[in-house]
């Protein structure tokens, strides 16, 4: 078997990306990864050096890699860690918080922490259990609380951009899942950038074109100490099944995941896919009387309703 060499120097490659027909060494790979991120930021007009960016960090490889890259690119990026109160084999949320804090301290970065149990009196699994949401798994409640808190904290702390580390595999599995169930209202909402609206900060996904393999490789090569353990509730999730399926396909057809997602974005851009205009999809947002965040319910927002049931 031939040794794979870096395409930019004679060193041994640490990664080969068949979809890009590119192999890179431990020095050139992080360089390429950072340059590509900057290219995506510009291509999708995500933000500039004048913006204040809040990075949602979980302690995992993707979000710490994103914060690391934005820091290296010189953006004004602070972190937000939401402690969900998830336990498992290890104290999952607390360990993740520690890893995130250590990462921030090593780089002199500012980390904001929102502790759900301290703020709300209950952990996310406890809220899910009490409200009987999500068939023994708190994932639906978790997603709701995370989205709510990220926007709330970004606004309170004066950030105009919220960056998440959603990657190619996240987006492809989400799109694939929505197509499988013909979720036509959700499909047109998927985008690298969600523009700011009344009460909502701009949301961006700078890693949308990197596979999870690529973000993991970046974290390993950069020596980022991330939490390798999976959320104990993620096991058996549909999203993981779709990711596995798409990766089996990628083995046979290099680049298929990227083509699937970019083809979708192109179709959106050219107007082949657009939001359903039957009146039902038209959303009128009003401030939630409890938290002030915009909601379409006409009363309390979905997150505040979780606590009204208490």
């Amino acid at each position, binding site marked *: 078997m031939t040794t794979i060499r870096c395409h930019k120097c004679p060193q041994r490659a640490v990664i080969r990306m068949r979809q890009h027909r590119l*192999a890179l060494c431990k020095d050139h790979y992080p360089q390429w990864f950072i340059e590509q991120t900057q290219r995506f930021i510009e291509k999708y007009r995500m933000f500039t050096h004048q913006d204040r960016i809040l990075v949602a960090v979980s302690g995992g490889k993707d979000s710490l890699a994103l914060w690391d890259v934005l820091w290296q690119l010189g953006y004004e990026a602070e972190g937000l860690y939401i402690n969900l109160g998830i336990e498992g084999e290890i104290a999952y949320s607390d360990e993740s918080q520690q890893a995130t804090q250590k990462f921030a301290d090593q780089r002199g970065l500012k980390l904001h922490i929102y502790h759900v149990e301290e703020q709300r009196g209950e952990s996310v699994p406890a809220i899910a259990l009490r409200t009987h949401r999500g068939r023994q798994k708190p*994932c639906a409640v978790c997603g709701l609380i995370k989205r709510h808190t990220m926007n709330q904290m970004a606004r309170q702390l004066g950030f105009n951009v919220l960056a998440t580390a*959603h990657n190619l595999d996240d987006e492809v599995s989400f799109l694939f899942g929505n197509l499988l169930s013909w979720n036509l209202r959700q499909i047109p909402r998927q985008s690298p950038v969600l523009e700011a609206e009344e009460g909502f900060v701009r949301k961006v996904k700078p890693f949308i074109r990197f596979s999870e393999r690529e973000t993991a490789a970046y974290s390993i090569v950069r020596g980022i100490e991330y939490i390798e353990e999976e*959320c104990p509730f993620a096991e058996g999730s549909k*999203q993981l099944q779709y990711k596995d399926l798409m990766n089996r396909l990628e083995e046979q057809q290099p680049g298929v995941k990227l083509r699937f997602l970019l083809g979708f974005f192109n179709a959106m851009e050219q107007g082949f896919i657009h939001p359903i205009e039957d009146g039902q999809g038209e959303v009128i947002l009003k401030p939630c009387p409890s938290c002030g965040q915009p909601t379409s319910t006409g009363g309390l927002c979905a997150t505040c309703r979780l606590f009204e049931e208490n």
Partner: protein
Amino acid sequence: MPVVLIYRKQKLEVEGTLTVREALQKLGLSPESHLIVRNGELLNENDILRNGEEVKIISAISGGAR
């Protein structure tokens, strides 16, 4: 002594000499979603694993609420 691969705190074994890609395939793991690290150094899919070595398999895939 075979090649020892640590995966999710479990010790798996395969007979060397073989490439990273072959080792992952033997274990039924997709090379698209798994990486192998030896002494902290990331290996590419053609790098060779030899009997007596211990390496770590990193799962690149994670899932959870959006």
